[in-house]
């Protein structure tokens, strides 16, 4: 009997009281758009493609973001420059499908794709929600300031010969007899 009263009345009363007290708490929301809310840097909003500290495109078109995306809204095509650098020939995000989950950013091995605090992406025409690389690519490094994939990777690109990447020794001379 006591349990019944506790369950049916007391717990409800406690809840009611708890909620009632919220009347005297300051609202969490603000008067958007007159007042802009504070957006945390790690907010998962509009997606951008960043550049490395040397100003080169960071994305190497590895397709990992595309495959990680739960709604499959990223499509891209790998291309290669003369010197061996991979880059996306096109890179398309269909934002009308994107759920801002951030998996793409998690998957990206080069820190190229990043979610930003910008959330004001509404469009009157749905087609305008499809963004191409030209729309996505920014001129800065975004949240990650120092990383440059090609300085770490073994692949040779312009300005970085074999053996010049992080932790690499000079290329082997296969004809040498030295140990």
């Amino acid at each position, binding site marked *: 009997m006591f349990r*019944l009263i506790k369950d*049916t*009345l007391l717990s*409800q009363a406690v*809840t*009611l009281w*708890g*909620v*009632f007290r*919220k*009347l005297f*708490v*300051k*609202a*969490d*929301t603000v*008067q958007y758009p007159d007042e802009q809310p504070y957006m945390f840097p790690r907010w998962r909003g509009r997606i951008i493609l960043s550049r490395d500290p040397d100003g080169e495109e960071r994305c190497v078109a590895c397709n990992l973001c595309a495959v990680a995306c739960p709604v499959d809204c990223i499509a891209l095509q790998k291309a290669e420059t003369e010197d061996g650098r991979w880059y996306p020939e096109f890179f398309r995000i269909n934002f009308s499908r994107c759920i801002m989950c951030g998996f793409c950013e998690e998957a990206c091995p080069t820190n190229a794709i990043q979610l930003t605090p910008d959330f004001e992406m509404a469009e009157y025409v749905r087609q305008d929600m499809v963004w191409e690389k030209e729309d996505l690519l920014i001129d800065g490094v975004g949240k990650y300031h120092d990383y440059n994939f090609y300085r770490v990777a073994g692949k040779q690109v312009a300005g970085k010969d074999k053996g010049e990447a992080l932790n690499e020794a000079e290329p082997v001379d296969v004809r040498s007899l030295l140990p």
Partner: protein
Amino acid sequence: MFTFAVGSALSIASILLAVIVLAALLIWVERRMLSFWQERLGPNRVGWFGIMQVVADMIKIFTKEDWVPPFADRLTFVLAPAIIMIVVLMSFAVIPFTPEVGVIDSNVGVLFVLAMASLGAYSVMLGGLSSNNKYALLGSLRAAAQMVSYEVFMGISLLGVVVLAGSFNLREIVETQADGWYIVPQFIGFLIFLIAGVAESHRLPFDIPEAEQEICAGYHTEYSGMKFGMFFVGEYLGLVLISSLITVLFFGGWLGPAFLPPIVWFSLKAGFFIMFFILMRAALPRPRYDQLMSYGWLFLLPLSLLNLLVTGAVVLVSTTATM
């Protein structure tokens, strides 16, 4: 001078107007109150504190396309929302707001209110049935079962008051409370009536017939425009009605210290319960349908019967003693 004498045309008109305007206003009040309780701001853009939101909503709802789904049963579909409005408004006829303000002074006021409440079930049932849509049908099935069940306890819980007052006349019930509100002797009855009242007006947490998360919008899934508006306003009218009834039956109606006029006392008391209902909506989660039904039949029914029995016995003993 006009008089607000009971039953005068002016009184009827002003009550009707006041009640409807109040119900409409409640839509805004509820949205703002909910948002405060949920640490939000709520509609605050249109007019002062957003009070004109109601007007904006009205304009929208009136200018919306008046659409009847081709697969619906036209006549019943149109009729259903009207029923709930009419039925609830009719109930107000017997409510004594003050000694002077009221429509009729009926000797069977309590029974009339109960009768009207039962008729209200038809609106919801027919609305769902005529929509010819599975969610609507599910909603109306739930509504029918829920309303028919809770009517029973509602009626029985009232009888305690009736026994104490010795009258079905709501005015007399108020008057007999001059030396003590019935909330004290009839606390159990009050609780049951409160719960049953929420269930009758199918408001949260007992909005099982509409439960959005389960069955779209239940019986009014197919409704839009003003027909939906009528269901909507009907619900708020029901809210006002239940609050008024609680005030009348358990809290001494207009009675109160003389520094405030009776109508203010009445409004304050009713307003308190309206707020309480809104708080309930903000705070309490919806039970499962089967929980609601078994709670009613297995707990509320015996409890209300017990309440009636004890009340009857006490009254019997005390009257025999004084005789």
